[in-house]
Each structure stands twice: as C-alpha cells, then as structure tokens.
C-alpha cells in the first residue's frame, strides 16, 4: 500500500471509529433517567 493510502485509511478509522467511541462515552457519561414505568411494552 502507498503511504498516502495508509495515511487516509488511518485517518478514516480514527475519525469514524474515534467519533463512535466518543459518542458512546458521552452517552454513557450523561446517562438518562430511565422511564421504564411508561415503557412497559404490551403490544396488545
């Protein structure tokens, strides 16, 4: 593989998978109030 191709592959991985890791971390850190009482699925 050429150097340019390797660099672009690494950049794509870092940005996209790194973005995913950041998004997951942010969501876990922020959390949410569970609303299970209203969420009881019945699907009648």
């Amino acid at each position, binding site marked *: *593989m050429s150097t340019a191709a390797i660099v*672009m592959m690494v950049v*794509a991985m870092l940005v996209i998978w790194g*973005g*995913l890791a950041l998004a997951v971390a942010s969501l876990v850190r922020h959390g949410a109030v569970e609303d*299970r009482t*209203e969420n009881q*699925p019945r*699907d009648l």
Partner: protein
Amino acid sequence: MTGQATGQVEQERRRGAFSSRRVFILAAIGSAVGLGNIWRFPYVAYENGGGAFVLPYLVALLTAGIPFLLLDYAIGHRHRGSAPLSFARLRRGAEGLGWWQVGICFVIAIYYAAVIAWALRYTFFSLDEAWGADPEGFFFGEFLQAGDVRVTADVVPGVLLPLAVVWLAVLVIMALGVQKGIGATSLVFIPVLVLAFAALVVQALLLDGAAEGLDALFTPDWSALGEASVWAAAFGQIFFSLSIGFGIMITYASYVGRREDMIGSGLVVGFSNSGFELLAGIGVFAALGFMAQANGVGVGEVASDGIGLAFIAFPTIISEAPAGALIGVLFFGSLVIAGITSLVSVIEVVISAVRDKLDTGRLAATFAVGIPAALLSLVLFSTTSGIYVLDVVDHFVNQYGILVVALVSMLIVAWALRALGGLGAHLNVHGRPRVGAGWRVLVSLVAPVGLALVLFFSLRDDLDEPYEGYPGWLLLVFGWLLVVVLPLLGFLLARLPWRAGTHLDGPPPGSDPTAPLHANPATRGEGGPR
C-alpha cells in the same frame, strides 16, 4: 387524571415501546446498517476519490446526516406516533407527508425482501459453490432464470421458497411486537452481524492481494474534491444509508422513553452506521484485491457494487479463495442479517401507521399489512422478470421517492411550519450535546441543498438516457408512475378520519420530557392541544 390523559397513556402502552435506550439504539443501528452499507459504500468511495472521499463523506455526515437524523428523532419522540400521526400532531395538513413515507416503505419492503431471499439462498450455495465456473451465468440464468425484459408470471421456485421463508420470519418478528420482536431481534442480530463481518474482514485481509485492494480504495484523488458530483455522491451515500427521511426513525423514536437522550443516541447511531460502512469497505476491497491478483488484472477491472458485487464478484472470490465457503457463509449471512433488521424497520413504519389510524391490535395490523405485502412480493419478484422490476422500482423509489419526500418534509417542517425551534428545545431537555442555531441552519439550509444536489444529478442522468437502458414502458410503469402515485395516495389517505379520541394538534398529553416521572400530565397544564 383526565380522560384524555388517561386515554393517551393507555394508547402509548398499547403501541408498545423499547424497554431501554440500548435496545432502541441497537434497533436503530439495525435499521441503518443494511445492504447498502455492505455493497454500496465501498464502490461509491472508490469511484469518488478513494481516500479523498473521506472528507466529503464526513462533511455530509456531520452537516446533513446526523442533523436530519435528529430531526426525525425529534418529530417522533415529541409527538409519540407513527409518521402520519406525528406529522398530523405537528400540523394537521402535514399528515399526508407521513402517509407518503408509509407508501414508500411499503414498496421498499416488497422488493427488499427479495434481495434478502437471494442472499439467503446464496448462503447455502456458498457451501458447495453451486455457481460453478460461471457465477454470472448461474445468477441470471440458472438461479433467477431471467429472460427478455418483460413482465411475466413464470414463477421461479428457487426464489419463491426462500422469499416465503423471509416473509414468514419477518411476520413472526412483527407479530411479537416492538420489544419482543424488533427489540429482541436487534439485541441478538446486531452483535452477531458485527462479529460475522469482523471475521469476514479478518479472513479477507489474510488473502493475497488484499493490500492492493485497500490501496485502490484509500489512495486519495484530491482532484475529485473539486467535482460537485463527488459531493453529491457523499450526501447521497450518507442519506440513503442512515434510514432518514422516510418514517423509520420517526416511528422508532416514538417508542423511546420520554426522558432519553435522543441527541447522544443519534450520534451513536450515526457513527455506528459509518463505522460499519468503513469496515465493509475494508473487507470488500481486500477481497476484490485478491480477486484482481488471482486474475492478473487491476482492482478497477473487478470493482463493482450492488447485485454485481454480491452475486457475481463475491462468488468468484469464494471459488478462488482458501476457506472460500467460510467467506461465503459470513458474507451472505451478513447480508441476510443486515437485510432482515432493515426490512423489519421498514415494515414497522406501515404497521405502526395502520395501528395508529385504525386502533387495531398488533397481530391484526401485522396480518393486514404483512400478508398483502408478502403476496405482492411473491407475485412480482419470484418470477423470471423479478430482477428487472426490482431494479427499476429500487432506483426510482430511492431517487425520487425517498429523496423527494425527505426534501419536501424537511422544507415544510423548517420553513412552512417553522417547527425547528420547538423540536430543538424538545431534544435539548435531556439531550447532550445541545442543539442550537447551528442545527437549525444545517437542517433548514445545508441538508436541503445537499439533497437537492443529489436529486439534480440523478434527474440529469435519468433524463439524459433511460436508466440502465430499460424499455420506456417499464420505466414509466414501475418508475415514474409509481413515484407520482405515492404522494397522491398519501394525501388521499390523510383525508380518512382518525379514530374517535385520537389526540391531534400538538404533542399528546404525557409527552412532556420535563414532567416528573409518574406525574399527571393533564394537571400540569402542559402538552395539551395548542
């Protein structure tokens, strides 16, 4: 509680819901990650600048894809209904947009199931390389038995049977409901999909020539960034792969607890979808690199997308590669899993709309929607002309169905209804990071311009020459006519009355995300009719 509030709570319980944020996120990822991620993204990236495509792709993801995804979430989460009900609650006159989306989903479901059926059959074909030395001849001849381009009623049993199996599986999932059906399927299928595809990528990377394939995919052509068509391709890829703009995310968001962080969830879903696409690009081009080297040609000569990639190129790779059967089962198995989780989300848009409008039970709505859809699917796509009809319907429904309804609904919500302020405020109650003026600019200006660009290039190509050289009557009946009828039908369906007691005109009582848990929304004086 007032009768109205009690009725609303009861209605929400009857609709069903995802049991947690994790289930919703997996279901949304399952919807977004579909066949297009595996067989469309790699070739689009390769054709549009290779490594340089990363730039427009990310710009499209951050300026149009995720903002539009959040718009869908806000509409569904705030208004707690299917696409037609959510639009009706936003403004009565907008209900037709929801039915237009429902019509598009119905059409997509009937042909999408056929492709899953092909992949299901090919999963088993992989075990003994049933295509022999001529995968192309086998696919069009022996398997599909495709003849001249004409509509026939000649059934192909080899397609009919797996198609019936796919529909049976989907109907069972849909009948089980939002959590036990869609949610449970996503909980199992998405981890399996990721593991199976990761195993495929590892296997592909071990093949001779894999590095040449990756070189072809990632070598940047910076001059491509100056071409408008490359930017249109990036916006188109993001748009089509995220399942936005045609009711799916509105419907799924309506099943999420009112206190969930929809912004954070949207970011996870958006980046997960792109993360899977990148994984698919690496796996597919590593395998294509092997194929090119084995045949002594350049990667460009074997690179393809869609049906050609899946049912012609990959069988060739499977025949030539060591442990080819394993690669085949992983590849086609991944297509089946990704397809099923997407198909389930598409058909749920229709079922949810029917349930809301007619107040029917889950089982009745599943049969009312699923059986006609399955029959149409079997009649149209298990015949010797199935592939031609499928190709035309797929192209037109995507380019002029999804794209146009998404563009129109975005412009109406942003400019005619001026609803972005309220929707953004709703997202911000529990969402992080907060959305503000920047989001409103992206949704009202940048995303519509991006979609208009995609539409312009598509329209220009289709007016220049007939799509794939198909005869005019086929393009007229299954293409142009179809995409004109769907919105008309949508606005006709919107004229049917809602069942008595359905809350319209504004978010329903109990949807306020700031209200304490178990509070009586009616006595707070919030969330009532405007």
